[in-house]
């Protein structure tokens, strides 16, 4: 998956979780918590969605790495590559 594709995937998950928010203005390097008011329960949802869609296990100590869109892309890139080699 390219970075652009992963970004689409991440925004798709966020759009599902916070249907009220406009995501078109989102800045990749700023914390989602500040931009969208996401709290720890919402992060649980992001993790659960990744688990459901890609059977991906994300340990709790890794949650901070999902704080921004950019961080999430970076975190997911190698893991998604592992899931679908080639």
């Amino acid at each position, binding site marked *: 998956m390219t970075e652009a594709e992963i970004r689409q995937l991440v925004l798709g998950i966020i759009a599902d*979780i916070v249907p009220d928010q406009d995501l078109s203005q989102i800045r990749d390097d700023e914390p989602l918590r500040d931009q969208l008011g996401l709290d720890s329960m919402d992060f649980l949802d992001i993790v659960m969605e990744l688990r459901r869609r890609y059977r991906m296990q*994300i340990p709790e100590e890794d949650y901070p790495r999902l704080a921004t869109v950019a961080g999430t892309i970076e975190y997911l890139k190698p893991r998604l590559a592992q899931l679908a080699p080639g």
Partner: protein
Amino acid sequence: MTDFDVVVIGGGLSGLSAALRLALFGYRVCLVEQQPRLGGMNTYFERDGKTIETALHALTNWPGGNGPASPWRLILRQLRLPSAEFPLAPQAFSQIRLGGTFLNFGNDFRLFLEEAKRFPAGDQVGLFVDRSLLPYSLWACPAGFGSARKVLLEWLGNSPLLPMIYLPVAAFGAATEGDMPFGVFSMLFRAIFAEGLCRPVGGIKALLTLLHRQLERYGAFLLLRQRVAAIRTAGDQVLAVTLQNGESITARQFVSTIGWPETWALLQDNAGTARQSQSPPAGRISFLEVIAELSCPPAELGFRPSMLFYCLKDECDFRAPSELIEPRLGAVCAPGNFQYPDPASEPMAKTMRLTCLAAYDQWASLPAGQYQTEKMKAAEKLLTTLASLGWDIRPAIVNIEVTTPLTLARYTGRSQGAVYGSPHKLWDGKTPFANLFLAGTDQGLPGVVGALLSGIIVVNQHLLPKA
């Protein structure tokens, strides 16, 4: 025999939110509800082409104010419902009547604080809120934290403010007589006074329709008109539930929302023997409710508050009466006095709901044949009481529905028709069985908001994996 990831017992609001939460993440979840319709205590029925709601007076935690993040925001997000699809109409104002005095409050907390100053110890209320009220937590279970009365006595002494504040809070969630846990009190005080009251536009039907649609969209399996007759266990594990028709459903995990004594009564070992140990106690707080359909909106009869809470007894204690009902302590709601965008199209706009404390045992021991008469007599007493407060709505009544503690017990299966369940709560939602959890009223979160939150919290804490 059918197999699922999770079986949720009971399709009230807590069962709905628990099942939906699980379905969102692809769990194969089966929701079992004994009635043909979802909603539990808060549901509706159709009569002569009209929709009649049960139970719901008002939702707490109006999200439009400037208080802390409203639980509604969290609930809608966690259930993936856009808030635009769930519009809420705020109250105009509500009134608390204690004997000959009154106090008004609305969805602006400052009104309440101002009003309180007319009474002895009134200037203490703001301090009490800042210093004593437990902090707001949306995802921790409230736990008990001692006596609410004791804390209130320390701040308010014998001021009439004490019963005035206690009354609406108890009406929205006291499972116990005379006193309640301070944790629950704190939560409800904020929910009612600091955030405020509202009603869903389109009534409870709108909320239930939204939840139902969402459950179907995410593939939850709804089993309506099926009663769970037994919960089969071995050691500290639940193996399956057996339905009334004899079928079994197995699952890895189970969530019960039907109450703790009610769940207890269904537990059997795998040979079908009931458990011998002592059941948790059933609650004693129950209500009689009169739904009066009017020929005009209540405001035209001079009734302007959205809700009225009153106590005309000398000692204003909240307990099961020794008679069929206690008409001198109750709550009245005028759904039409909430601020809807389009009042005329609201299903309940021309009704009033009158609720008072009632005793299950008294209703249950009535000789056959007297039930209908006593229901009508009770309704008459409540209407007379309202008339004595200055609002005689009797000439405008076109139809009356009365529900008693027996109705509640029969419809929802709650022992003794206990509105807020057993006095014995399982605050963390855990039971002696490793894969059985309790959500809803007997986990300790009362009311519509409490039930929805409880389903979410219990699933998040105990059923979703911690990776």
